[in-house]
């Protein structure tokens, strides 16, 4: 029977099998494995059963540790249980994995293998996570393609029940997990055939049951533990055979054959590489071609890594092999070699020693592909060529240039072109224009409508606003094994003309390729608007060139800026992969399938766009020669710091792969204040200030998520060198008479979100739509605003000590030390982070939980964390997701310890330092700008005096002297961290009484991984993992913290009450014990127009959904620590909720459920309000506040 072909990605391929074979899945989101859990959850939500008819129970846990615990329990009670994870998530499961394996419990963990964070976090793929879990006793099965991700998933589910050994089934994160490919779907009959009922019955029988009570999980002593550990050996001995049998069964039923170690290449190969995972695809292509050229080479693909079946390896590896290169996609610093290498060496050495193999080939070990580094046939060819040398490098890397330890092989990239019969198309798109979605559809269309095989792989940049995507699509007559990016495309589409000046987009074009450009220039005029580099490619490569004004067509069809349908149609029209009529019909069918549920108008508009696209497509008559000027802009301005020039600029222009090892920091330490050099200029419109209308309220600057609109106060002399018409107005406040002020936009850093204009209260008396700032077309104002911005930066920052920083206006006179982040346009989190940086940025350490804030804060190439004129600024670090509170507490402990050391040494050295300075340094320095400045000055004097003191203590004191100045610790993270995975640690840190400040950026979902529900998600909202509407209420984190009595707690929403927000920040910093700020942070996951996010915040407060309060512990016996800062709710919760898609979608999809949950949510609000009103009256003493103050005071 011909199999059903589907076009899916690796995650879906594996999740399909897992869902069909499971009864319980305990899940937790982590990139790149999240889609597996999301799909499983969605399928169960839709009532899709497993192959035995039960709808699997999917439960989201608070962490991967929790998921593993729940899995363990579910297994113990007899359910077929699986989970999905990656990277640090897998590491959190390790303790349970030892238990599950130790108890010989059938289970499967599907892993989208991802880099473990070391010197840096990386979301991309390698085997460092699975290798870190290799000693748990789990079997390890590696898939190297999307097809295998499905087939071997089934092998894992079947073999675990047969063998009782739990399985870790892994495939490469992104390269396989996110590659869309046409595969043959495994049939339910095949699944049922591989998992007979008796195996399940055995599993059930072994489960805990009061009807046959047993004890599992004992504690054992030295007398028996060892023996008991050895008792499981036979199960591991039997496992390879069981896996091979299961693979054979699949082969019998599907024709797809797998071996524990698959060999490919010349039967008499002399040079062989051994590897596992997606690199096998590239390796197979290289080996095929070399064998065709007559070279005696081959490769071994490892499928079962644990238990390591040495016999099977020896059978697979031809005896003729004299040189073997083992490639590991992981790094184990300090080891003699990486894990696969070591196992292969051991197997061969033992075989040689026992005579099972005539001799020992030379075996070398290499690393490749860390963090999804490209791995291509050329690299495989290079490794095989290295093996041909008399003395190949024993240890090497491939794919990078290592100019430090000189381990890397030089790759010869010539001669590795892909076969001609494969259509290779590359699309440059904006994240927001839908290019990726349309291309996924195109892969499906071709995969499912033709006999061709299809593959799609998508590359994203790290920005959340104005991001780029590059889609790599292949179509060909054979299954596509190319597991690397296209570097010679025969079709290139540029979906945004702005790219042409930022990257050499046609560098990827093959000779004779077709180029499609979305531009408003018609075919007869476009040429003169192309950068010279683009013209040269077109002419030199004899390309066919087409244009279409997709923006116009999409706009006229009512689709706004989503040009994907238009350009997808043009691709089909030009590529000829399908006959045009057939292609159009298929596109429309795909549109119907994708968007059909959303409404007829969505279809009509997309259909209209398809039809109009063909009309608008024009061929350009290409001149014989290029005549344009160079148009690709430099990645960074001139006069940047050396590091930015050498390293950052390369990364910005997409050439980070070319950086050698020596260019990178050895320990992951990077300079801050670099976002200012990455002029992305992504806004279409920017705010332009009208000083005549402005009322000096500073709200625009406060709410700007990107620090791209700022206020400065200055004396008139500062304008001496101002450019013509530099706008300024007299400061109206009585605090600074005779001062001027300016509101200025950073035109190349603004993302055009419009939040500033939305909040601006000052309207023209003559024309109400004209505000003190208006969003106006950037193109018309860019040059002028650039000039003004450059001058604005030269105006000195206002004296911080002279202003009330705890006021809205005062706070905005302080320089933002968090600027121009790549957060979403209109982000709800970053205004708080920026405010934090303005109030205390020059004196804080930031511990940042993994999540959105760590990505926009610390994802290369640049960081928004900045420095002031004195070179001071926040020092920032990200440890993990789950440990951030503890990480920050550790910083506090270190600072306090160094402060203690400094004071001790200072007292000891008082004679040399001088009694007056010593006393001043040791006295209570107080709080506030002046106090800090004074202490800094004293510390500077101290260091000066110590310079000349010949005493070892002088050096010691100098090293810790800065700790005499109060340094704050801010622990920043999202709700996923604070409410879920990091809650235990957060609770402990709050309980510690130490002086740390916690800022929770509460978006009410896991924003960074795509909007999964957390315990901060409100009742009645939909979110991933809560598609039916979250049935339970939001956890009241503030109330939990208040229970301690000595924790300062502030719940804030900037858009509702700016003054309260600023005050809460200031009070939190002043509070000598732990502080917790919970900041309402609208997010695109709420389904709102982010431009209006401040209005949403206001409504959230007006409805009582997000009450504002401050709990300031007091020492008085009759003190009232709780202050409710918002007014009695004035609008029903429904009115607020229905303005946000997260609530409104449920009201549409399931009105009854929505009504029920909205009623409950209103009841939650009413009850909470009642409670908070009563809280206002409570009298409470912060029991140990004074003691804490004493203990923690510097």
């Amino acid at each position, binding site marked *: 029977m011909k199999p059903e072909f589907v076009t899916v990605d690796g995650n879906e391929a594996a999740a399909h099998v897992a869902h069909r074979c499971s009864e319980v899945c305990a899940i937790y989101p982590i990139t790149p494995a999240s889609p597996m859990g999301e799909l499983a959850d969605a399928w169960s939500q839709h009532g899709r059963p497993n192959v035995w008819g039960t709808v699997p129970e999917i439960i989201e846990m608070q962490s991967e540790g929790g998921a593993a615990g729940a899995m363990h329990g579910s297994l113990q009670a007899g359910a077929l249980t699986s989970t999905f994870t990656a990277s640090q998530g897998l590491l959190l499961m390790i303790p349970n994995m030892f238990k599950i394996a130790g108890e010989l419990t059938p289970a499967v963990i599907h892993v989208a293998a991802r880099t473990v964070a070391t010197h840096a976090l990386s979301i991309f793929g390698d085997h460092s996570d699975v290798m870190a879990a290799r000693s748990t006793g789990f079997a390890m099965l590696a898939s190297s393609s999307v097809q295998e991700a499905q087939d071997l998933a089934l092998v894992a589910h079947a073999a675990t029940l047969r063998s009782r050994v739990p399985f870790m089934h892994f495939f490469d994160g992104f390269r396989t997990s996110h590659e869309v490919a046409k595969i043959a779907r495994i049939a339910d009959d095949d699944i049922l055939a591989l998992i007979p009922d008796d195996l399940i019955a055995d599993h059930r029988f072994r489960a805990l049951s009061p009807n046959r009570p047993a004890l599992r999980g004992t504690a054992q002593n030295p007398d028996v533990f060892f023996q008991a550990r050895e008792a499981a050996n036979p199960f591991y001995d039997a496992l390879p055979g069981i896996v091979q049998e299961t693979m054979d069964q699949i082969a019998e039923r599907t024709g797809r054959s797998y071996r524990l170690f698959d060999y490919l290449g010349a039967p008499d190969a002399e040079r062989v590489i051994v590897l596992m995972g997606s690199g096998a695809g590239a390796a197979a292509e290289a080996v095929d071609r070399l064998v065709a050229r007559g070279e005696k080479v081959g490769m071994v693909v490892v499928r079962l890594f644990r238990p390591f079946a040495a016999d099977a390896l020896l059978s697979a590896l031809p005896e003729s092999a004299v040189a073997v290169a083992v490639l590991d996609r992981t790094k184990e610093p300090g080891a003699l070699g990486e894990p696969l290498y070591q196992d292969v060496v051991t197997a061969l050495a033992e075989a040689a020693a026992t005579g099972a193999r005539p001799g020992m080939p030379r075996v070398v070990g290499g690393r490749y592909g860390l963090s999804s580094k490209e791995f291509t046939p050329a690299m495989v060819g290079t490794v095989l060529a290295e093996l041909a040398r008399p003395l190949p490098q024993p240890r090497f890397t491939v794919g990078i240039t290592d100019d430090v330890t000189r381990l890397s092989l030089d790759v010869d990239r010539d001669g590795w072109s892909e076969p001609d019969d494969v259509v290779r198309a590359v699309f440059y798109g904006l994240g927001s224009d839908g290019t*990726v979605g349309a291309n996924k559809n195109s892969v499906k269309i071709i995969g499912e409508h033709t006999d061709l095989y299809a593959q799609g792989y998508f590359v994203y940049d790290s920005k959340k606003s104005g991001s780029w995507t590059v889609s790599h699509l292949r179509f060909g007559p054979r299954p596509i094994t190319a597991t690397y990016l296209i570097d010679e495309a025969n079709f290139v589409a540029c979906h945004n003309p702005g790219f042409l000046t930022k990257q050499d987009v046609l560098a990827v074009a093959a000779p004779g390729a077709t180029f499609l450009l979305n531009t408003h220039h018609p075919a007869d005029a476009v040429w003169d608007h192309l950068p010279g580099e683009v013209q040269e490619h077109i002419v030199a490569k004899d390309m066919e060139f087409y244009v279409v004004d997709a923006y116009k067509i999409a706009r006229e069809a009512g689709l706004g800026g989503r040009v994907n349908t238009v350009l997808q149609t043009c691709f089909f029209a030009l590529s000829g992969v399908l006959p045009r009529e057939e292609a159009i019909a298929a596109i429309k069918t795909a549109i119907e399938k994708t968007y059909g549920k959303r409404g007829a108008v969505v279809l009509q508009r997309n259909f209209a766009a398809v039809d109009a696209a063909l009309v608008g497509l024009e061929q350009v008559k290409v001149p014989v020669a290029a005549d344009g000027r160079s148009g690709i802009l430099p990645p960074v301005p001139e006069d940047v710091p050396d590091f930015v020039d050498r390293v950052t600029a390369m990364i910005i222009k997409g050439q980070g792969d070319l950086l050698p090892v020596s260019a990178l920091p050895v320990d992951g330490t990077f300079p801050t204040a670099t976002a200012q050099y990455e002029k992305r200029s992504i806004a279409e419109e920017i705010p332009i200030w009208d000083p005549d209308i402005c009322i000096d309220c500073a709200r625009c600057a406060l709410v700007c998520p990107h620090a791209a609109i700022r206020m400065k106060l200055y004396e008139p002399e500062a304008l001496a060198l101002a450019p013509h018409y530099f706008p300024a107005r007299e400061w109206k406040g009585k605090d600074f008479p005779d001062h001027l002020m300016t509101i200025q936009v950073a035109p190349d850093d603004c993302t055009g979100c419009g939040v500033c204009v939305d909040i601006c209260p000052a309207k023209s008396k003559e024309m109400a739509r004209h505000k003190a700032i208006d969003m106006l077309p950037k193109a018309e104002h860019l040059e002028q605003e650039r000039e003004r911005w450059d001058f604005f930066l030269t105006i000195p920052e206002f004296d911080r000590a002279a202003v009330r920083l705890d006021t809205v206006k005062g706070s905005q006179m302080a320089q933002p030390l968090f600027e121009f982040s790549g957060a979403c346009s209109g982000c709800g989190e970053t205004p708080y982070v920026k405010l934090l940086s303005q109030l205390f940025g020059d004196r804080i350490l930031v511990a940042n939980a993994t999540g959105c804030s760590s*990505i926009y804060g610390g994802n290369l190439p640049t960081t928004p964390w900045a420095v002031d004129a004195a070179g001071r600024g926040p020092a920032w670090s990200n440890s993990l997701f789950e440990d951030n509170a503890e990480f920050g507490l550790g910083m506090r402990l270190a600072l306090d310890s160094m402060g203690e050391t400094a004071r001790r040494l200072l007292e000891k050295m008082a004679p040399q330092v001088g009694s007056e300075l010593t006393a001043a340094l040791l006295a209570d320095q107080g709080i506030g700008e002046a106090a800090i400045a004074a202490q800094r000055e004293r510390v500077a004097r101290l260091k000066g005096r110590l310079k000349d003191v010949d005493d070892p203590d002088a050096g010691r004191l100098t090293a810790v002297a800065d700790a005499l100045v109060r340094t704050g610790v801010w622990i920043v993270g999202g709700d996923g961290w604070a409410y879920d995975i990091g809650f235990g640690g957060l609770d402990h840190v709050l309980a510690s009484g130490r002086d740390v400040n916690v800022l929770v950026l509460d978006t009410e979902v896991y924003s960074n991984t795509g*909007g999964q529900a957390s315990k901060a998600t409100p009742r009645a909202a939909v979110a991933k993992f809560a598609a039916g509407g979250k049935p339970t209420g939001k956890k009241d984190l503030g109330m939990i913290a208040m229970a301690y009595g000595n924790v300062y707690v502030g719940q804030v929403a900037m858009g509702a009450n700016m003054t309260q927000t600023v005050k809460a920040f200031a009070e939190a910093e002043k509070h000598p014990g732990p502080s917790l700020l919970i900041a309402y942070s609208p997010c695109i996951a709420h389904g709102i127009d982010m431009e209006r996010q401040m209005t949403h915040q206001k409504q959230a407060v007006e409805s009582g959904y997000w009450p504002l309060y401050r709990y300031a512990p007091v020492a008085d016996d009759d003190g009232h620590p709780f202050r409710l800062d918002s007014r009695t709710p004035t609008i029903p919760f429904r009115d607020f909720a229905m303005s946000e898609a997260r609530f409104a*979608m449920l009201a549409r*999809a399931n009105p009854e459920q929505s009504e029920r949950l909205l009623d409950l949510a209103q009841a939650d609000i009413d009850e909470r309000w009642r409670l908070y009103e009563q809280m206002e009256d409570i009298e409470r003493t912060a029991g140990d506040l004074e003691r804490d103050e004493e203990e923690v005071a510097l």
Partner: protein
Amino acid sequence: MTVNLSTDYLGLHLANPLVPSASPLTGNVDTMRRLEAAGAAALVLPSLFEEQIEHEAMQVHYALETGAGHYAEAAGGYLPEMDDYNTGPQRYLDHIVAAKAALGIPVIASLNGTSRGGWTLYARLCEEAGADALELNVYFVAANPDMTANQVEMQYLELVATVRDAVSIPLAVKVGPYFSSMGNFARQLVMAGADGLVLFNRFYQPDIDLDTLDVAPNLVLSSSAEMRLVLRWTAILKGRVDASLAATTGVHSGHDAVKLVLAGADVAMMASALLRHGPEYVTTVLDSLASWLDDHGYASVDQAKGSLSQQSSPDPAAFERSNYMRALTTYSAG
């Protein structure tokens, strides 16, 4: 003597001339039941707005597409896919079915379209769902100065003709009063296929928020005074167009209803007063209507209907400009 309150509207024989018009009360089966129990003779369901349906579908689309394929860690977007978004007309059609199942009185569906295809499609669907009649709620503010009065009127007439062709149930057309020649236009609407005219549409009118200086559309409940415009045109059109006449806007009491019947209305439609006083207020109005007719010796609504229309009035000019003049004259004389 018992007054015979029955009346015919759009060819439907109704027990009395009181018809609750589209409002939240007719959007809920329970309140519709209460309206019927209180004596409502028929009712008009809230409007199916094509624009709203389109807007909701596009909102769902944008909400799901925002952020999708944007960023590696959230490539699938930020909101979950649902089984069904119910963005189409189905909920409205289900409401027609529920109303028909729950009520014995005629149910009139109301429709506001934006495209010709939309008008005809949804009209047909309303008919198929069981509506006894259809009211076209034509809402168009001719703000474009380049558009002539003739073009505006032609647009209405084509629309009515198109829907007329699409359905066989009775068709009422609800329009606003702002036509240069209301009488002529009313007649043309009837010629185009309207079985009845509903006078008049009450647009959402803009308001200005003096705190924020925002323009905020605002619907305030009507008052009795607003009934006068309706009264005038009901009286003028009665007997001059071959169609049923429904008077709506400003009907707040039995006496208001009496006046409209006297002017020539086949039915008086109510919403604001019912929202203010509750569905049971229908009984109060009906009782008052019946009492007045009885007290003044009328045997039936039919007898009274149109007895003070312009054609039947002893002072026809009172419904035209002279009304204004006399008021001034009376004032100066007084």
